[in-house]
């Protein structure tokens, strides 16, 4: 009798534990800079959030016009020893790479890419790697080459018992029959950069719940299991003569407070009054800046939309991206709040 009671509690314990695991998404971050050197505060932040997985951009790949081949650029420099236990090497590949490359050259490209990743991996022997992610905003014309690349890479990773994941844009989620389903193990739905960056009139190009609502409807059945990527970054979009010319990363409103140089015409929209330097860019009088960031409220609304659109278990909630400003602007409680929204669904 006593044994059966123990057995009953053990079963309850494990079944409850399993329930929590499958409904509450795991929190992860993208790291997108050229150098990773986590400060003690950032490490603490990750620990507090129980982050065990980091999507680490290893390098980008672009088409080299001189060489007529894809080449790695902006390779990461890893100076940190206190990385989370699991790393997902993430590679951004420009669409033009797949527009230019010939099908016959894809196999050696995969080979080069694979070896390069292995080489970087050697610098972080203690971390666990079971997944690799490719980020590419493919188009109709590059689709065939891109999918062939993914297929080849997936087969290669399979031998290494690693999974291939890819980023999925909102329009690719909404129109899978037009854009195609990438041959990968899973996808990460990028819920940012949703608005038209190039237009001055755009409200917020990073995240706008009105725009996301046009892409998301309840119970969307995308053929790949999807993780969710949400933005936690800010920038200034610089316009000159009506044309968007630069992004000024992690720009703060306080940096535009000096009225001698900047005049806030409407909320988050500034006109440069006097030519000056800002974040290393020389601004001219008359330039316009649209300051964009993501409010916790917008994050919550979009998360609500997403939890009904992409109900899933064993999901990862990836925040883009990790740096000291993110730590300051999106404290532990905000991130946890978002996590709970997804956890409530099942």
């Amino acid at each position, binding site marked *: 009798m006593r044994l059966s009671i123990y057995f009953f509690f053990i079963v309850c314990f494990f079944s409850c534990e399993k329930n929590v695991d499958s409904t509450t998404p795991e929190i992860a971050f993208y790291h997108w800079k050229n150098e990773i050197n986590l400060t003690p505060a950032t490490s603490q932040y990750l620990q507090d959030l129980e982050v065990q997985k980091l999507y680490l951009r290893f390098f980008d790949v672009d088409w080299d016009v001189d060489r007529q081949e894809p080449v*790695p650029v902006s390779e990461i420099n890893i100076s940190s020893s206190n990385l989370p236990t699991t790393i997902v090497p993430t590679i951004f590949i420009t669409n033009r790479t797949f527009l230019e490359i010939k099908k016959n050259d894809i196999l050696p490209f995969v080979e080069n890419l694979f070896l390069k990743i292995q080489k970087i991996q050697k610098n972080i022997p203690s971390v666990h790697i079971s997944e690799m992610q490719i980020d590419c905003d493919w188009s109709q014309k590059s689709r065939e080459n891109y999918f062939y690349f993914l297929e080849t890479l997936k087969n290669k990773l399979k031998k290494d018992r690693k999974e291939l994941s890819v980023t999925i844009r909102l329009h690719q989620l909404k129109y899978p029959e037009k854009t195609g389903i990438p041959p990968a193990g899973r996808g990460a739905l990028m819920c940012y950069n949703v608005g038209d960056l190039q237009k001055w009139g755009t409200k917020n190009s990073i995240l706008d719940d009105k725009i996301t609502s046009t892409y998301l409807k309840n119970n969307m059945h995308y053929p790949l299991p999807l993780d969710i990527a949400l933005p936690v970054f800010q920038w200034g979009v610089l316009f000159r003569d009506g044309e968007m010319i630069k992004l000024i990363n992690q720009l703060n409103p306080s940096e535009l407070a000096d009225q001698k140089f900047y005049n806030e015409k409407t909320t988050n929209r500034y006109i440069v009054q006097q030519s000056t330097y800002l974040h290393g860019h*020389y601004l001219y009088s008359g330039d316009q800046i649209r300051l964009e960031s993501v409010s916790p409220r917008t994050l919550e609304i979009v998360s609500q939309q997403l939890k009904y659109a992409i109900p899933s278990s064993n999901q990862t909630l990836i925040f883009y991206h990790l740096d000291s400003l993110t730590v300051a602007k999106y404290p532990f409680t905000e991130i946890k709040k978002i996590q709970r929204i997804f956890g409530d669904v099942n």
Partner: protein
Amino acid sequence: MSSVIKIFSLFLIIAIVSIPNQISKGCGPIIYEFKGFSFFDADLVRTGSPFTDFFLRFDDFYHSYAIADSVRNQSNLEEWNNIFCGAFYEKEIQDIVYGNIENIKAIQRASEKKKNKLGLRLSRNSFAKHLVDYKCTETIDYLLFAKNCEPHVTHSINAWDGPKRDPVAMKALIYEGERVFLKLKSNNIKLRYAYQLIRLAHYAGDYDMALDLYDRLLPRIDPVESILHDWILAHKAGALLRSGQRVEAAYLFSLVFDRSPSKREAAFQSFSIRNEKEWKACMLLCQSNHERATLHAMRASEDHSKPVNDMRAIYALDPQNDNLELLLAKEIKELEKDFLGTEFNRHRKDNVEFHKIPRKQATANLIDLTQFVIKAGKEKKVRRPELWRLAEGYLLYLSNDLYAADQVFKDIEKILPTEKLQEQLAVFRLVLKITNYQDIDEAKEQEIVQIIKKNDLYEKYPEFEKFINDKLAYEYLQAGHAGKAYRMHHTLEAIKPNPQVNIINDLIEIALEPEKSRFDKILTTNKDGTEIIDDLLDIKGVMLWNKGEAAAALETFKQIPVAQRGANRFNPFIERAKICVHCIQPDSLLIYNRPGILEHIFELEFQANSDYSNSAKYFYQLGLAYFNLSYFGPSWNAMDFFRSGNNWRSAKSDTFEHWYFPFGNKENHDLSKAKSYFEKVLEVSKDRERSARATFWLARCDWLSYVTSSGYKRPPSSNHLPDLPPEYRIHYQQLASDYAETDFYEWVIRECDYFQVYAR
């Protein structure tokens, strides 16, 4: 003889107006790059200034790493040759300095032996031979040392390998190099060792060591003239930047930018000022006005810069500065895009849409630059005030102050000292003259013909052709001559896939005018000297026919002389079991030309409406004919001039963009006429076999209408049939339910695998 010249001139002009300008280099896709004009000759400011390539990099000269490498290597080879008093071919030095390490080892071995012996290939290299003969041990050892450093500091041939940097090995090389350095006699070689060591320390990430080596080694070298001083300085700047000494680094990068062509682009890329404070601090580090002016020149060279204020600053600090003219040229090139011929540039809409040109504040920029240029030309402190006056005239022209521009051009015509400047003035005046043309009449057309034929500038500056064509096209359009405007850019062939009524009617009117001007004669004459009127009538007939105006079409075709109406090469009245666009029909059956088809159609319509007992037969033939004349039938080319096999599935409209046809390619997808006749067959036929056939044709029309509609959904693979919505299945089902007993139905069941699927 004179008639030969006349004919030749005529052909020349015909060739000019009939060559379509918009043909791209490949067969598509359509590339929306900025398209405009430029008459400012950048060569005017290429006066040997070492900065020319940097500032006038309109072709991204330095942005190619391969080219940047080659500039650096070339400078290095020149210096090596100078050290040896230019005694060798640079290729010989190149083979040793940038060649295989084994060559240098062989040279070393040979120089160490008492009896010098080089291999056959190296013994033919006089540089290698010299090193051995004169036992240039320091040079040979240095070359070997540099080769050993190479893997750590240069990019691998395979871009995926990355630099093979081994900090431990790099440090070992630094210690070895420093030991050798202390024993060296040659200052040139000392400088090269210092460069290698500082570069190794910089790339090994030991910035303190790099700065320490700089401070210790450089004072030990007696002054020698060398490009390496600036290369070393660039590494010092890099080390300072990485150590957080940003202002000092920026200052040193500006010095390298100013002095070193081989490192100019790299220095520019590394130069970074974060805020006003850093800018002021950097200014304070400058030792002269020239250095301060360089900082302004660098800032003015950023992408999307507005350089006039920096030009003013350079002018105030150092009015004779080389960079002023280069910045002027760069800015004029930008303003040309905004203002030159924008009113009549035929690509103006694309330029606005895809490039946002003219820029919003272009007018303010133009005024700003013009004011500065007037001041500089007037005060005469700049190197060539006459160039600034010429620029003033051109900027006034761009401001659309044509009178003021003309006055300036008159003022300066006698003071321009060089042929090049005189020629530029002549070009600007010709541009002004063409711009002034309005209300084009015969006399003006004659003047333009004279420009095309006799003005040397027209031939020398290819921009004039585009400029004149666009200007005339614009003026003709304003005057209501759509046809003439069209002919300024396109051939008649290019309008055939989608004829435009206003263009065709205008050209026909001109072609039929008994007393045409010479220019109009050219526009309405083919390359072989024949007139284009028959072609125009043929196009108009096809256009009317497609609009459903068959009687008017026939009238138009009949205006063409019988002999010119085209051979009999169609027969849309033949029934084929399978739809086949490209099936070859025997010549004996091809008995109709275009008017012939229409006449037979009218005849069939008359019979169908008068011979009631056989109406069904005639309606059936008419349905068949209109199907065969459509995009999907073998006689498609009777009602169209061009067909693309790609243009049908999921079409949003029946007109498709095409790189060669300015109005696109309109495909004759419309099956409504064919369907209406087959429906009439069902109304009047008593013959069940014929009705079954008509129903089957209707089903085919439905299928094709669906796949050409924007609502068409592709099947998952080419082996699958499209999923036909119910409204497109009606005739399939009707055939199965109403005509199951007919012979035709039996044939359909036997021959058409897909029928069963849709009839369900």
